[in-house]
């Protein structure tokens, strides 16, 4: 259970303590330290957004001194590598990034107003399924997961995608999140056959099936879906156990083909919000610096070494939180 002392904003004094007593420059992952000179850094000193931009550091030691001395409210670094990061000029390449924010997950079981253990777990489940698709379908490597404080970032350093433009990244987001209804008519030698997505156990239809199953199994009576009325929602929830055994055909016939189409169309458009597409397609985005403090919730932005065992409430809570008086 999350203690009352967690997820509260950090005071300026707590920030200073964090950067002087707990934080170590070695906590910054190698994927940042080995490219520090190529990246733009940005800082939020007052909690009003990262308006101290275009910062560059010639070495990790200078970055260490800056963070120790300024103890910013938030610290960020660019996903882009530049020839001249001080002017965001001479773009070389950008990490491919996926941002899953717990509070923006389209169907949340918890119903909390901000972020809680339940929706953070859900975010991690989503991240895990995205990784499966990135590796299995798209064959991508060099994937890092970072707990951002309110969700997770997936950061890819696979050279084959780092020079891709926003439009290709947009297509990758659509593929990964299952945001497009797969076609259900296929033709060969003049004859057209109907094949529902769940009958094709690979490629994009399988991705769509996985994301749709996940959405349906997480529906709550309060979930609002376009084109899905209360009666349909109720019927879906009543029959959804069938999907746990992959009995899609029976599920579809219980719902009815027309209503099933409405349901999956609606879920496809909802899936688009599984990841924040704006972050993925922005080649010059700045992302929270791993190891820095998310002062709004008093959590450490932490690289996730083992996704199976990671628990943000054990591994990303700064010491000062435990010393707060209740």
């Amino acid at each position, binding site marked *: 259970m999350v203690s009352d002392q967690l997820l509260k904003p950090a005071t300026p004094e707590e920030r200073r303590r964090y950067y002087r007593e707990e934080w170590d420059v070695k906590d910054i992952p190698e994927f940042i330290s080995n490219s520090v000179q190529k990246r733009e850094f940005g800082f939020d000193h007052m909690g009003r957004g990262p308006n101290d931009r275009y910062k560059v550091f010639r070495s990790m030691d200078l970055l260490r001194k800056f963070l120790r001395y300024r103890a910013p409210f938030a610290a960020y670094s660019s996903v882009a590598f530049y020839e001249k990061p001080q002017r965001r000029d001479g773009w070389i390449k950008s990490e491919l990034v996926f941002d899953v924010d717990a509070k*923006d997950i389209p169907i949340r079981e918890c119903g909390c107003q901000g972020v809680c253990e339940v929706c953070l777990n859900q975010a991690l489940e989503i991240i895990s399924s995205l990784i499966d698709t990135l590796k*299995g*379908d*798209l*064959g*991508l490597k060099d994937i890092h997961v970072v707990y951002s404080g309110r969700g997770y970032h997936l950061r890819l350093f696979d050279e*084959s*995608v780092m*020079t*891709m*433009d926003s*439009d*290709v990244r*947009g*297509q*990758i*987001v*659509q*593929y990964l999140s299952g*945001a*497009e209804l*797969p076609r259900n008519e*296929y*033709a*060969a*030698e003049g004859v057209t*056959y109907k*094949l529902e997505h769940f*009958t*094709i*156990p*690979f*490629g*994009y239809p399988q991705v769509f099936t996985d994301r749709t199953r996940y959405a349906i199994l997480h529906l709550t009576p309060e979930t609002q879906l*376009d084109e899905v009325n209360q009666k349909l929602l109720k019927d879906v929830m009543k029959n959804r156990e069938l999907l746990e055994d992959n009995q899609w055909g029976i599920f579809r016939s219980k719902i009815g083909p027309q209503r099933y189409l409405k349901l999956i169309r609606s879920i496809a*458009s909802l899936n*688009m*919000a599984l990841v924040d*597409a*704006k972050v993925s*397609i922005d080649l010059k985005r700045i992302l929270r610096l791993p190891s820095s403090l998310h002062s709004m919730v008093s959590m450490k932005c932490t690289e996730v070494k083992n996704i199976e065992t990671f628990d943000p409430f054990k591994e990303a809570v700064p010491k000062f939180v435990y010393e707060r008086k209740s």
Partner: protein
Amino acid sequence: MNKYSICMVNVAFINPFSDEARQIVREYGNLNTIYQENGDLIQLVTRSPSQDISDEESIPHNIMDLALKRMEWYVKKRNNLEFDYRKYSYLYNRNITNFDVIAFYLLVQAVSVKFGPNSRESRVMVEAQGKLMESRMGELLLSEKRDILGTILNTLLPREVKWTMFADLLSSRKIKLTDLVLDQGNIILDKDYFMENLGFKLEHRDPGKMYDLLIGDKIKELIINRMIMQKTEDYISEVYQKSQRQVEPNPILLELADKVTEILNQPMATYGYRGGATGKVEASPLNQEAFPPCVKIVLEGMKSGGRNDAIILFLTPFISYARLYPDVFRRNTTLRVSDVDPELAAVEKEILPLIHEAAERCTPPLFEDQPQEKVNINAKMGFGMHSEIELKHEGETTWYTPMSCEKVKLHLPSLCKPDKTCKSIGNPLSYYIHRLTDLRYEEATSEEPGEESKQESREE
């Protein structure tokens, strides 16, 4: 064998970038002969299977004519409901390959030199090439088609085809990632690979049959088609770059380019293309009834996240273009706001108030906590980063064109609540023109009976 009987299909008939096609170009000789009456060509045209040509005008007499007929075929096919393909059946005749390749290169060079890669002419040229290739493939025997697909794939692609090789095709949306069958980063084209790595996952279905349905020839054809379109596009850019270094372009090419423009303008005048006889949609006061659902949502005020993007990146370009330059995508010419609104009266009295009101309706009101965003609105209309809109600053920034539907879905997914009209358009601005035309038509057709009924009631 008769010279004009059916022969094996030359790969150049489908792929004008093949070695065979390049050989044809090398052997052609003098460019000036393209104007000369070509008896072989005329005979081929008039003897093409299923042709239905009853007038001289429909017959290309030389290579120049053939080049224009290629464009005319596409434009008519796209715009004319009564399009008669039999008048162009020679374009599907494999025996035409030698002349066709020359016509292709002439066209590409003409549109590149005169209009450059970002022009309407170049775009239509690329689309026409894709469509022609598709139609030609459709006319081949299955065995021929498979041979050709195999030959072209072998020359264009390595054995293992990674999806990352198609970044440019994905970027221009010529192919969609979701249309491909992917496994471990490979696009599955090969049947053996499919059977070995994916086929076993299928339950109660014949893997061979599933391969034919899911991949078969279709994906190969799609990839080849889109690669040739992309190569055409790249070639246009290449020729354009070279032409910039030349002093004087060949007048033959310039003349051909002008004739291509004439053909492209025909549908607007002949087939009642939306927008009237000139194809232009003039600047006029905004009609909010014609706004698409996404714009209406923003005008009501954004209640959750995405306020800034919705007002600055989405609404500002939409409202300004809808009011001042609604057919920007059709006319494909860059304008400044003051070219249409020299006194900036519409900007001050109609455009800005509408955008500012929408910003005020947001929760919380956008300018309350981010007053600096007013400057960004001015910037997106091309007036630089200044708090007031002034002509002296125009051009310091770019007048942003409205986001496409694809971009809206990515940036602001909560705005996309498509209605019936949305299905046929790709940009909210096109929706506006579409609905505006419909509303004007409805108004025009409902006015007359209305007048009559008023008169009738007066008479009573």
